């Protein structure tokens, strides 16, 4: 599904990713953990195609294809989805119409006709029920005045609507109370299949109790310094990150 080779990326000439190697196969869940400033969100943004980051070395292959030159929307059309750590507020665009536009633009890119309105409504109803989202919420302006939890739930709603191949959840657990966390994790688990993959970026182990990873990677100073199974997450939770920093001699 996703293969990252020796990825170096910088923003405004400041190197942030310094040689990431990562392979994620279909059906897998990978967790990326690490202290603040280690490059977790940068990695997510670089995969999703944020233009302000410059890839200086290495490459990102999605199903064997180098996506480095593709625009964010083209990556989305190929099935990359980023759940934002800080979803952007867009006044004047309702959640429903945003989703309609996103789905139909993706269909257009694939040479398909617009989704019939009836099917769209059905899909919206189905997915919003899954995430226990109130109908009224869907006619509100995108993320405007949403609570932290509502924003995150809305991100996963969008993921459910778009059914990506590769979903990257960037700190989706931050700002969620335990009930919302359960709903969101439940949604992600329902969307998981043998044909797609999920990368969970998180600071804490809490979310990983609900979305159980096959692999856990520790990112530090722009590099993956340790990989393991879900037990590694527990160890990090118990001992913090300092021992890793010492281990790698940072």
């Amino acid at each position, binding site marked *: 599904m996703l293969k990252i080779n020796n990825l170096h990326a910088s923003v405004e000439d400041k190197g942030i990713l310094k040689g990431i190697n990562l392979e994620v196969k279909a059906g897998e869940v990978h967790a990326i953990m690490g202290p603040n400033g280690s490059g977790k969100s940068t990695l997510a943004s670089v995969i999703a195609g944020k233009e302000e980051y410059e890839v200086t070395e290495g490459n990102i292959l999605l199903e064997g294809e180098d996506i480095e030159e593709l625009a964010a929307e083209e990556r*989305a059309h190929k099935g990359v989805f980023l759940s934002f750590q800080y979803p952007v507020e867009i006044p*004047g*665009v309702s959640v429903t119409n945003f989703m309609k*536009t996103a789905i139909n633009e993706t269909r257009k890119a694939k040479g398909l006709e617009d989704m019939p309105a009836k099917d769209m409504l059905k899909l919206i109803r189905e997915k919003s029920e899954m995430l226990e989202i109130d109908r009224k919420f869907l006619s509100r302006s995108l993320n405007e005045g949403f609570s932290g939890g509502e924003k995150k739930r809305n991100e996963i709603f969008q993921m459910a609507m778009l059914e990506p191949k590769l979903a990257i959840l960037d700190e989706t657990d931050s700002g969620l109370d335990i009930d919302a966390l359960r709903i969101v994790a439940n949604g992600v688990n329902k969307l998981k299949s043998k044909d797609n993959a999920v990368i969970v970026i998180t600071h804490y182990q809490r979310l990983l109790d609900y979305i159980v990873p096959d692999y856990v990677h520790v990112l530090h100073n722009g590099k993956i310094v340790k990989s393991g199974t879900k037990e590694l997450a527990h160890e990090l939770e118990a001992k913090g990150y300092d021992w890793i920093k010492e281990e790698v001699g940072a």
Partner: protein
Amino acid sequence: MSLKEKLVSSFMAFENTLDVDSPIHDIRTEAIKTFETEGFPTKREEDWKYTSLNSVLKHDYSVFPKHENALEFKDVKKYFIHEIDSYKIIFIDGKYSSHLSQTTHDGLDVCLMSAALNKPKYRLIIENYFNKIAPKNGLSSLNTAFSAEGAYIHIPKNKLVAKPIQIIHFSTGNEAALMLQPRNLVVVDENSHVQIIERHQSLTDNPVLTNSVTEIFANKRAIVDYYKIQNDNENASLIDNTFVNQKQESHAKVHTFSFGGKLIRNNLNFYQNGERIDSTMKGITIIGNKQHVDHNTLVHHIEPNCESHQDYKGIFDDSSTGVFNGKVVVEKEAQKTNAFQANNNILISDKASINTKPQLEIFADDVKCSHGCTIGQLDESAMFYLRSRGIPEKEARALLMFAFSNNVLDSVKIPEIKNRITKIIANKLGVNIGFDL
């Protein structure tokens, strides 16, 4: 010979054709004197600091078109809001087109200014209202002097006019360069309600300059909804002078949609002569290339307990330039006034510019007045968010711009106008998405 000299000498010829007993004959002769003294405004005047008329005054305009022209409805249908039943007052090169129009005298008068100026039965209204609120400056006076044609609308009391009235001025390009001076009078009596749509459309690349004056009287509890669609081609310029006089408890709204034209100047004045009046002016400006749009507004709060709302959005691309100059005057007697003004702008290109200037003159002490101007760029993080969901760059940009101006469309009461404006915006932004936001 300068345009001013040409106009002044043309007036002498024009005067010979006029009826000296007409109620407005003295008004005209007075007006041409004012124009002779004042001339066209220049950048030396505070109100014209950011708009120069030099580039539009340099053409050798025909003042009285020599030819009569006809147009077929099918060829110009797209400029009408044709999906709805409406009254229509249509002009081609300044001359009335009975073929394209649909006027009425059945319980209300929707007809021609030329008829109103010449027939005795309109004399009382003309004497009471004509040129009563147009300021005595050069441009308005010039129009007054040459007033010959335009729309005359009189709605007697307690009348809810079910059909909107469309006023469209076409120019065909039969003249190498044409100057038009339409004059409209709208009188809406007590408890009546009317909706009016106005458009100026040039059909060729020959230069056109329109200096239009519209006087609107909203009497007690009257409701007036006025929509201006300014989407002309880049050789046509428009100076729109619209003056609204309101009596107690009346509501008047003017929406101005400025998407096209070489130079547009909107002088829009509201005078509140009564209590509990509501005045609303809203606008969306989306321009590019070297286009220039200037909104110059005035609300004069004269009596207590009135409101005014101004909301103008502007999006400027390429080397286009915009001006917003919004003046709110609250007289000492106008206590409990609520006056709101907002002007928000997005500059898409480094070469585009906007000059925005709120001007508040408040003499009363118990009022709520707010104003705010913003100038910014499109939010890059919002762009990435939309694009990461599969919405391509151009569409994402359009969606954000549309969302930015959307609240101005909220108060448009005729759905077909809203649809049309939405389509014009989509077209202008080069996208094919239904913004049904």
